[in-house]
């Protein structure tokens, strides 16, 4: 079934006339995503290079196209405003790709989004969200797909739709890192395991959806057989997710935590670690997850094989 988005989801791109917005709108169209238009204030009424209509406001775009999702490529100083504009226009899945939004802006966004319970924010500073489509032809990066939905910058062709999975099993993937998500997708796809939906929740400290909300969605999704959760040093999100898994999750959860060799204190001022109250190193998180029944891969190269084992899939890598 997939979560949050599917082949019918209609998507607007905010910042469609910028170089990144234009490039990735093309990439999403190529994957088969129903891109229905874009928003650039002041360029309303024009068409983009793909012939998609451009609107001055998200509200106008929603009214004209019925879009339910948005993909944001607006530059950092204006991105927080764009997220709130999407929420106010009634967009239900807001995917903010933009990297470098000031933390204070995101704190205000997060507080304001409480007024919009129907809006789900993915990111910012993330690769996006994809529900893989069925492969219809081609090879490698020139493969074509149908009935999928890719909102973001990930290479679509590495994903495997559940209907194309040789093993008959599929996972959901939630990750704080972009390229490490691709690694997990690649490893599972190589073992004949499909993906229902993959979400990059982003590398910023203040963000939209977090592990627990998405684990809950995957837990209720019939097609998802297990969840791969990729975390890293800093904060206590993974630790909290582990506790939630123990109490609520009925499916296997496989995890990798990046940064066991990361130097301490390179990122955070020292009072920051105080509030979390717990140790936020990779090793501490791994131990905590294990104690809550999560399967933890020591090596980033074993995420796929560990998932296969948990699902009873015999490894016959292609």
């Amino acid at each position, binding site marked *: 079934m997939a979560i949050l988005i599917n082949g019918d989801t209609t998507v607007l791109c905010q910042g469609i006339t910028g170089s*990144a917005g234009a490039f990735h709108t093309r990439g999403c169209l190529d994957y088969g995503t129903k891109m229905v238009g874009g928003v650039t204030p002041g360029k309303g009424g024009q068409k983009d290079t793909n012939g998609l209509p451009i609107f001055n406001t998200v509200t106008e775009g929603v009214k004209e196209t019925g879009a339910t999702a948005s993909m944001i490529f607006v530059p*950092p*100083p204006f991105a927080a405003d764009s997220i709130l504009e999407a929420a106010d226009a009634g967009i239900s899945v807001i995917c903010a790709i933009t990297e470098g*939004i*000031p*933390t*204070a*802006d*995101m*704190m205000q966004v*997060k*507080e304001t989004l409480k007024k919009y319970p129907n809006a789900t924010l993915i990111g910012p500073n993330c690769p996006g969200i994809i529900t893989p489509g069925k492969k219809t032809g081609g090879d*490698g*990066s020139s493969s074509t797909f149908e009935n999928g939905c890719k909102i973001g*910058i*990930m*290479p679509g062709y*590495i994903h495997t739709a559940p209907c194309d999975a040789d093993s008959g099993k599929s996972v959901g993937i939630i990750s*704080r*890192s*972009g*390229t*490490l*998500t*691709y*690694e997990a997708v*690649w490893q599972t796809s190589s073992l004949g395991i499909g993906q229902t939906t993959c979400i990059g929740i982003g590398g910023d*400290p*203040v963000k939209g959806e977090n592990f627990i909300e998405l684990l809950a969605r995957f837990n209720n999704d019939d097609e998802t057989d297990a969840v791969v959760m*990729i975390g*890293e*040093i*800093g*904060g*206590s*999100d993974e630790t*909290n997710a582990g506790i939630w898994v123990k109490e609520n999750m009925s499916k296997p959860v496989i995890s*990798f935590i*990046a*940064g066991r*060799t*990361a*130097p301490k*204190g*390179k990122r955070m*001022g*020292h*009072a*920051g*670690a*105080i*509030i*979390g*109250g717990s140790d936020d190193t*990779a090793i501490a998180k791994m131990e905590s997850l294990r104690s809550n029944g999560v399967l933890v891969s*020591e*090596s*980033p*190269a*074993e995420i796929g094989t560990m998932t296969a084992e948990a699902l009873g899939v015999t490894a016959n890598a292609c």
Partner: protein
Amino acid sequence: MKIHEYQARQLLAEAGIPVPGGTMVTSISDATNAAKTLLDGGATLLVVKAQVHAGGRGKAGFVKLCRSLEEVTEAATFMFNNPMVSVQTGPEGLDVTKVLIADGVDIESEFYLAITMDRANGTNALIASSEGGVEIETVAHENPDAILTQRIDPLAGLQEYQARQLAFDLGFTGSQVRQASSIMMKLAKLVDETDASLAEINPLIITPGSDGQVMAIDAKFDFDDNALFRHPNIKEMFDPTEENDSELKASEFGLNFIALDGNIGCLVNGAGLAMATMDIIKLHGGSPANFLDVGGAATLEAVTEAFRIILADSKVEGVLVNIFGGIMKCDVIAEAIVSAAKEVGFTVPLVVRLEGTNVEAARKILKAAEMDIPTMQTATDLEDAAARVASAVSAVC
């Protein structure tokens, strides 16, 4: 972005928070002159403090209490002529180029006060403790109940009642309650106006006597790099001499680079994959020489520069390239490898693992250049790559 203590004190003073007087100097003679002015003005106790971003100054002998001109000159001479070595600096220590000569203040009691992000809530929090003057981590570890917090609403900001509550909880009495809560409100306003990710006053003190004054003695600030574009006055405080040369160079090219102690140089796209690559090198018995995320949109020039930075490190005995192309195209990396081979030359083993966008084109480029890069091996996957580079490097040693 971090700033020096003297700059932090200046920000506090401008925000109306009481701080003792002081002057930043860059030479021994200026230190003597500054001390003379303060002593002539009636000061009896001076504090000489090295201005470096690393902590642990006191224990290392780089914070000195002085009562005469001779003592100040002696302290400044020592600080300008010796590297400061503390637990936070590494064995080679840091050179001191700036010293603060400050008015010494008598202290009745010390507190800790800070505003920083509460990640779990996605907001800022005001944090305070009556155990000032010591590292807050130590307090958190040994006596967590001594740490008091107030969540700051991102839309409404810190409220007066929250500051008063904290002042009472810390044990302030009489007019000091208003002094302390006023400092808290001013600090919150300063954080708001500068996008500080950490604003720490440690210690916040009360001077002795019935009319004891509440003052900030030492302060530490860190600013949100993503918000510097809207604070040119803060950006001006950046001190490049505090940064690692390679890291500075890398940032000019939009590369995210952190120097480490190991012998295997890493070039990776994406922060998570870069960390994971370091991790797997360690699992194979190797040791990473750096963290390097070339990002998603790096140009051929930037990637070539990345190789130059990695190979300039004499500790590097092998290089691992791990790219999972998404926005980053593998053929750009392949071309950068070829151009780095021409410009700098790979005398050490090079292991390349490429996957993702344009990987077929990239493999062709590397195949064609094989003869020119004899130390290059290509790996089939992450596991294979880590094993190859670890064994190549251990064979060298």
